[in-house]
């Protein structure tokens, strides 16, 4: 099947009324959680994971994907108007976006963010469409050693790029693997770390862990301090950027798009890193770097394009290798697994309707987002005025309901509360939850591929070094692990972590 045939089949799926509805719900909720500080795409996706059970797999996945790229769009609104990033990938947009708003140029800032995001999102979908089939053909040749090494690389890079101490991030990754292995052993059927609880035989659920670590922990952390929001009272004005704005932004959008897309594909990468890298790049190559931080439109256009392109690029490793490159994609993998599907190189041939349906829905979703973001900014500003003291009890209630609905077990609510407290303490002590969640999802696959590799090689560890792809992945992982020992690399990493903070 060629790309055009596939896309035709995809549009036939995506344009079904029910899938259009799910796509709209996804991008709408995505924009909403992007706008609202205190709840991000990870929390929203885990909250809505149980809802996907009621429909077909394609409807559910289309909605989940919509939440992700929708939140990338919505996040810019709060960054520009309130100077509070709605989600992590929009942190950098605050710097120049809010400065533009203070200068009475909120309209062009919001406009270029929406239009740049649209252009980047569209590019990412076209690239996904062209790259994914080729990569899937290569991935068929992957065996257990390659998968094991690729997952090790993903976890190591994510830990390397996390804020603060790398030892702490790796510690979280190892703990995540342990949590992922709780339950019945896939090979010997022996119960592991279940403490004689029947509820743990199937393992700990993804939803209670994620809702606890991100949803409940975020609320506990926010409750500690008064959230102050200073929504712009001035008129937003015309959203359409001027000719001068376009001239200044066009190359920033293009550079951000390409950079973001490739950073999105990399294991451990994602929208947050892409937006920071794009901002750093724009500042570095600008003839007038002193304008950055004082309302330079390139400082909004580049990062916003980059985070949207990264959101699209991140689908490639998931769809072609079955390996999620970041936490959001790990949740999407969870949604696939709940429906009894395994994304990977065979998905394109076995379930082309699903693969191409998701790709086509992303085109439609991007167009919907442009319509949602441009004329409805006034409505999103009103949403921002909803007091947190009303919002947080409701978010807590949705967490409880979402967790209960995912497994129909009150035990899961308890697990969520425990992980909520753990997540809160982790934040206080400077431990990152993202490596934990990614490792939790990858844990069973990681162990399975390790054991299979050792069984196939008769216990010979050199199998990981004899195969070129596996060897390269392990070599890169080793470089990331040893980076703190090299002063130049360690300085670069700590500078990046400080910028992120």
């Amino acid at each position, binding site marked *: 099947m060629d790309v055009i045939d596939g896309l035709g089949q995809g549009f036939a799926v995506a344009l079904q009324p029910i899938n259009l509805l799910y796509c709209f719900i996804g991008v709408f909720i995505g924009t909403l959680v992007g706008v609202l500080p205190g709840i991000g795409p990870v929390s929203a996706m885990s909250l809505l994971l149980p809802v996907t059970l009621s429909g077909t797999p394609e409807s559910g996945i289309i909605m989940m994907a919509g939440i992700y790229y929708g939140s990338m769009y919505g996040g810019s609104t709060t960054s520009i108007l309130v100077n509070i990033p709605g989600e992590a990938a929009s942190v950098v947009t605050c710097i120049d976006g809010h400065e533009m708003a203070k200068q009475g140029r909120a309209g062009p800032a919001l406009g270029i963010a929406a239009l740049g995001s649209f252009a980047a999102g569209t590019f990412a979908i076209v690239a996904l469409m062209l790259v994914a089939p080729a990569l899937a053909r290569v991935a068929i040749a992957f065996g257990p050693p390659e998968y094991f090494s690729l997952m090790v690389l993903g976890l190591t890079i994510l830990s390397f790029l996390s804020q603060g101490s790398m030892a702490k991030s790796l510690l979280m990754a190892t703990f995540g693997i342990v949590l992922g292995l709780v339950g019945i052993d896939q090979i010997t059927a022996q119960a592991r770390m279940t403490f004689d609880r029947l509820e743990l035989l199937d393992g700990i659920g993804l939803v209670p862990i994620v809702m606890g670590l991100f949803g409940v922990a975020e609320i506990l952390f926010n409750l500690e301090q008064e959230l102050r929001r200073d929504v712009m009272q001035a008129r937003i004005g015309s959203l359409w950027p001027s000719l001068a704005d376009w001239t200044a932004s066009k190359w920033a959008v293009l550079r951000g798009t390409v950079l973001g897309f490739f950073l999105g594909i990399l294991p451990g990468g994602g929208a947050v890193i892409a937006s920071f890298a794009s901002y750093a790049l724009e500042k570095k190559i600008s003839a007038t770097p002193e304008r950055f931080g004082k309302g330079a439109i390139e400082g909004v256009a580049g990062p916003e394009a980059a985070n949207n392109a990264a959101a699209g690029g991140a689908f490639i490793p998931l769809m072609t290798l079955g390996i999620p490159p970041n936490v959001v994609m790990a949740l999407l993998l969870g949604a696939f697994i709940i429906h009894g599907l395994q994304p990977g190189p065979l998905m394109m041939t076995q379930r082309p309707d699903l693969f191409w349906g998701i790709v086509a829905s992303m085109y439609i979703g991007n167009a919907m987002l442009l319509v949602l973001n441009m004329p409805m900014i006034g409505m999103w500003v009103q949403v921002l005025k909803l007091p947190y003291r009303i919002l947080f009890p409701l978010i807590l209630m949705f967490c409880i309901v979402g967790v209960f609905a995912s497994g129909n077990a009150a035990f899961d609510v308890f697990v969520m509360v425990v992980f909520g407290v753990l997540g809160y303490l982790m934040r206080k002590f400077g431990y990152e939850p993202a490596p934990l969640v990614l490792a939790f999802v990858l844990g069973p696959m990681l162990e399975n591929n390790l054991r299979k590799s050792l*069984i196939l090689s008769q216990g010979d560890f050199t199998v990981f070094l004899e195969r070129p792809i596996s060897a390269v992945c392990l070599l890169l992982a080793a470089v990331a692990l040893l980076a703190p020992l090299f002063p130049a690399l360690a300085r670069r990493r700590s500078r990046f972590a400080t910028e992120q903070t």
Partner: protein
Amino acid sequence: MIRNSEFWGGLFWLAIGAFVIWVGRDLGLGRLQEPGPGFAFYWIGIAMCGLALAVLAPALVSRGPSLASLWTGTRWGKVLVVIALLLAYSVLFEAIGFIACTLALLLVLMWFVDPVDWWLAIIVAVLATFGVWAALTKWLKIQLPAGVLAGILG
């Protein structure tokens, strides 16, 4: 050293790592040609202990933020109350039921934890609780525990 938050964090994860090693040995390591169910646990536990020591060791020789400083100037009392409320909710959820538990939780949060006008709290709590109940049970066909209201709700 004893007040250093990094020290206590490292010690906690060292204990968890040691426990994971013990679990791995208990489950059985197997052989390299045929790794047992505890093989991964054992080696991950060792890695955890090594990483925990990497966090702990600097805390032994240098000064870091104290445990108390992590909560200085914060509204930590509210956090404790919310944690207690959530734990109580998770224990009572099945016995008392979704509607009674959720109404009580929302009202306590909006009356006492981070107060809003009492009438607004009632409106939000009632609308949210019954709205979610109706959406889940009627639309998504998900059964929520009826608890003490089982007779009324059917």
